[in-house]
């Protein structure tokens, strides 16, 4: 019958197990495929990434040179990162901010 007394004491004296989000955010986990980032200076607008994208989230045009990503179609698979010949695409761990 007094099993729970120890439990109650522990619950009253310990810190909460939860984090006070949004005042304290969790550090992003290193391996996570968070969102797609491009280095525009290196891109040659070959269009290979948009041809290979399984979700048709990328659109690349030559004249004028544009590279557009539809972030809501992107499935973060990383196929474009692998096929880019100039290695200008990468996936950063934080969740993307699309505001």
């Amino acid at each position, binding site marked *: 019958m007094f099993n729970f007394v120890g439990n109650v004491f522990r619950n009253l004296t310990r810190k909460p197990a939860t984090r006070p989000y949004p005042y304290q955010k969790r550090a992003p*986990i*290193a*391996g*996570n*495929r968070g969102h797609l980032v491009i280095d525009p200076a290196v891109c040659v607008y070959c269009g290979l990434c948009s041809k*290979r994208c*399984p*979700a048709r989230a990328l659109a690349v045009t030559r004249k004028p040179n544009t590279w557009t990503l539809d972030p809501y179609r992107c*499935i*973060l*698979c*990383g*196929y474009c990162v*692998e096929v880019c010949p100039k290695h200008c695409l990468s*996936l950063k761990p934080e969740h993307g901010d699309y505001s």
Partner: protein
Amino acid sequence: MAKITVIPFGPQHPVLPEPIQLRLELKDEKVVSAIPALGYVHRGLEKLVETKDYLQTVYLVERVCGICSFIHSVAYCQGIEEMMGVEVPPRARFLRVIWSETHRLHSHLLWLGLLADSFGFENLFMQVWRAREAVLDLQESTAGSRVILGVCCVGGVRRDIDEAGRDQIKATLDRLEQDLHRIVKPILKDYSVQHRTVGVGQISRELTFERGAVGPVARAAGIAQDLRQTGYAAYSELDFQPVVETAGDCYARMLVRFREMSQSIELIRRAMERMPVSPISVPVKGNPDGEIVSRVEQPRGEVVYYLKGNGSKNLARMRIRTPTFANIPALLAMLPGCELANVPVITLSIDPCISCTER
């Protein structure tokens, strides 16, 4: 005079994770017959192979189901590799085993939580899903994503597990084992849980075989068949034996999945010990040609992939038969004779994944 009522169970029901409708014919409170109605999440994924080439289809196939997604991609990649004669390096095969087993763990933990919720044991539901979070964090840091891993490709895998990953796997498995040990008593030895599951949804061994049931549903009725015995990926090097029970009721199915969870933890530990050092993928050239059937063991049972290539970069036909599709006829044999209040428990005990069923 007994009154006959017809009530629709589903498609929206608090206990069902995905929509399926069972039209139950009831005599007072006992179910007389059940007729399933599917088609609420039919997405026509098999037709998309006409527009996506065979390398992009890996990502499509992962999204057939959200719970067993990695194992879908393993089945597909194995089929394409066999059709094109590609030999996967040994380290990639062990890595596929490790991620398949973490997927099995997270799927069984999810199922256990849903089953506990179906008979009102919400406390256990939350505790089990909290234990599952450790597995999802592990998948996020080793593979890149919590559930839809995106780490299997034709020719191997895309990522390796380094020293930090191995330490994290060890720590997660130790903690998970302690959590499982703590929840054995409330779920398996509790009087109320046993009252709701022992003897409920009983099905004989012959009827299970005749209705073509697969996975834990068949293994709980005494049929010792597990596709991992064929030794695909690296299972032939891991001394694998299937887990079998004989009672054929909901309690036996729960016991099978519980023991499979402990078995998965053991398999991951063994795979990590025996994993050799080698490249993790080989380059793939050319297009698939011919037809092949690839079968793999998902958490719910046997999944069958029929792939037909014709030398172009699009496959001619991809047919997927998922385990829940095979278990539904067995469910229709379990329901007659049970009480209406037991229908949710029985439906959940076959672990229905309707988005797999309807693709």
